[in-house]
């Protein structure tokens, strides 16, 4: 529980009933708070997925600090280097040379050269209009044995693409078109392995496909193997730029099968996959029934305990809440600052089905004190919801937690039961950065 230090007279925040909420932006923007839930991945975690790679950041000390300590906490300082910028660098017109010289200096001091170096520049560089392509070209000429990737830590410059989506796109940049292996398909865009028990894999298997996932690559050559895939599937909207770029550069056909919680949409996803694979869709009615049974079993155990869900736990929090509400759960709160355009249908349906569902922001300045004001009698899905509700009963996942399809829903039911029965040390759990990554804490 938060300890109050100010003694000031402040305004408390109340949730907005979904019936009164605007779509897609329910709250006014302003100064922002940062809750201490650290499980979501950042560009360092994602970049580390490339085996035998070494990240180099070129930016100001304040920007370096976060990425360097991300690497330190995941015991990966041997895969991270940096160049610190000062005032002179902003104005002397030598920024390109500074990046080039800094990277060369680091590479020359390495005991063993990496196969790939993602070079990250910052807002300052883009604002100054550097020629990053030229820098990458020059570095590639000097070190033809290394693939350099232009990467970006540019949280200010988000007019066209979010930092998260940009990182996922650049993650596959070195992948080049190889001879197509008809027995290989790929899952891209997920930072963590997708559960092998998902019917997704049954379908791939029925089509005679092995599945490439970046999390399964142990070498850089394994990683480059994506270039031979006959089909690449992604399930998160944030990976759409990655899918489009991969298809444009390599010709690999991509297919978006959204990670969702609507039975009919899941069936349509599998129909689309089977069409792409040229096979008849298997009968998944048993899987569908198992998913329903799992949720019913969870409802039985969880009872009327209110449920709170945050946007980091699942890509479609409203769709997820709708599914739970339809199974009789007492869905009480959603924590999100914006709704995905994909959620309009669920939004409209929830307005009718559950008009009192409370929407809370996560960034509003008053959320600093939300943990004071919560009873803790919640079952939360997601770390931010757990923190704000001050509860130790929560499903500790981000980005869907690797659960996909009917099997994913079945597993989600089991996770709800587990969270209800086995309270966690909330602070210790959500303080760890990059859920699923190694941590020295």
């Amino acid at each position, binding site marked *: 529980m938060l300890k109050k230090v100010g003694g000031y007279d402040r305004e408390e925040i109340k949730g907005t009933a979904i019936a009164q909420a605007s779509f897609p932006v329910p709250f006014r923007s302003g100064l922002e708070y940062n809750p201490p839930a650290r499980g979501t991945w950042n560009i360092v975690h994602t970049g580390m997925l490339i085996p035998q790679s070494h990240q180099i950041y070129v930016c100001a000390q304040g920007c370096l600090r976060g990425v360097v300590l991300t690497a330190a906490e995941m015991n990966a300082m041997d895969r991270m280097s940096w160049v*610190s910028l000062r005032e002179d660098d902003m104005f002397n017109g030598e920024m390109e040379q500074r990046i080039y010289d800094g990277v060369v200096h680091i590479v020359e001091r390495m005991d063993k050269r990496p196969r790939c170096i993602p070079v990250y520049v910052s*807002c300052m560089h883009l604002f100054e209009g550097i020629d990053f392509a030229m820098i990458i070209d020059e570095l590639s000429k000097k070190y033809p044995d290394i693939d350099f990737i232009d990467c970006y830590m540019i949280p200010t410059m988000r007019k066209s693409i979010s*930092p998260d989506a940009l990182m996922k796109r650049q993650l596959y940049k070195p992948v080049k078109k190889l001879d197509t292996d008809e027995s290989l398909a790929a899952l891209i865009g997920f930072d963590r392995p997708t559960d092998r028990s998902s019917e997704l894999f049954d379908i791939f298997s029925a089509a005679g496909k092995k599945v490439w996932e970046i999390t399964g690559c142990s070498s850089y050559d394994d990683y480059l193997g994506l270039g031979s895939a006959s089909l690449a599937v992604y399930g998160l909207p944030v990976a759409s730029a990655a899918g489009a770029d991969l298809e444009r550069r390599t010709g690999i056909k991509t297919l978006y099968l959204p990670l969702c919680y609507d039975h009919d949409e899941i069936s349509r996803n599998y129909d689309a996959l089977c069409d792409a694979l040229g096979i008849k869709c298997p009968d998944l009615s048993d899987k569908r029934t198992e998913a329903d049974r799992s949720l019913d079993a969870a409802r039985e155990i969880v009872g009327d305990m209110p449920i709170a869900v945050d946007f980091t736990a699942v890509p479609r929090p409203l769709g997820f809440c709708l599914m739970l509400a339809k199974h009789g759960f007492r869905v009480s709160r959603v924590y999100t600052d914006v709704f995905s355009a994909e959620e309009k249908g669920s939004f409209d349906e929830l307005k009718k089905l559950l008009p009192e569902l409370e929407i809370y922001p996560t960034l509003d300045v008053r959320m600093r004190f939300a943990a004071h004001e919560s009873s803790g009698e919640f079952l939360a899905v997601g770390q931010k919801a757990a923190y704000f509700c001050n509860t130790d009963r929560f499903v500790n996942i981000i980005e869907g937690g690797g659960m996909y399809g009917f099997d994913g829903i079945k597993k989600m039911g089991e996770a709800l039961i587990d969270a209800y029965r086995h309270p966690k040390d909330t602070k210790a759990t959500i303080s760890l950065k990059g859920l699923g990554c190694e941590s020295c804490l």
Partner: protein
Amino acid sequence: MNLTARIISVYAADISGVCSALYEYGGMTVIHDASGCNSTYTTHDEPRWYDTDSMVYISALTENDAVMGNDEKFISDLCDAAGKLRPAFIAVCGSPMPAMTGVDLEAIAFDTGNRTGIPSFAVRTNGMHSYISGAGRAFESIAVMFSEPAKKSDAFSVNILGATPLDLSLNGTLGSIKELLRANGIEVNACLGMGSSLDEVKRLSAAHADLVISSAGKLTAEYLLKEYGIPYVIGIPFGGKFSERLTEALRGSAASGKCTDIFKECRKTGYDIAIVGESILSSSLAAALSLEKDISARVVESIGDSDMSVLLDTDISAEDEDIIEKELERSHTVIADPLFEPICRKPHFIRLPHEAFSGRCFSKEIPNLIGTELDKSIEKVKV
């Protein structure tokens, strides 16, 4: 100097220093930077963030507002938040983007103060310097803004200047300093930073002397000397013997009205041991080792912003990884944060984590070195 590192960490930046220094005063501190950039401070540089509330926020600067110079959005957001939260003061500090676009943070603070009626000020930062620069300026700002002329306390009392978790961690070090002073008959009039309040800032001038325990306290010490004639002594009371010398120096300074430099008389300089880090903490440890074990030690100031006045002849200031690596070869033993170990080729490396360098990574193993025999607190130091 190329400010390039192959493998070592980087120190907390000026922005974090501001937020850390002002954390406990009931004010609202706002970083002018992009959405999410405050997570660096709240994750790695602020161990109080989870358990102790404080109004530290970010402006969520966007590309459009940066390009178009939309300062009004920032001011409006500050006023809106202040209306909801009613902070004791408003402090704003800047990151690289406002520095590039030439945002006038002083004017923004002035306008915000006028509109809200809440004392407001800007602390000069741009994300390109260390936490010492930011914390030092933030401490000085609240001292200038809130300290008042006051009658000297009847009992002999001192101010402790420069206490942030970035240097002291949350391992009881500050409590031990206060205890040690009291055990030596010295009252703590005010402590700038941790365990403090605006009331303490208001009565800063009542102290007879200042104890500057880290470089972040130096600017305020200079201000209090100039404004109220309070002399200062620099040093953190590591080890029993050095602590005695510090408390004696505080009494001496209070009596004479002059600042006292005790490092020259307490330290045996040389190259046997290299102590890497912030200058005042490292010099104090070097002094303690000299007094207790007759060890010659040198300080390798590795931040670039530390108080250089305490460095002696064999000491050096070096921010660059290559230079630090070469300098460490000159000593047979190195005492440093564990994230320096990869560039230390000497077999004897003594881990002394520093939150400002390694953040949360080793915070559980940061020793409390105040007033105790050093061998009880850190690994046995070989001569």
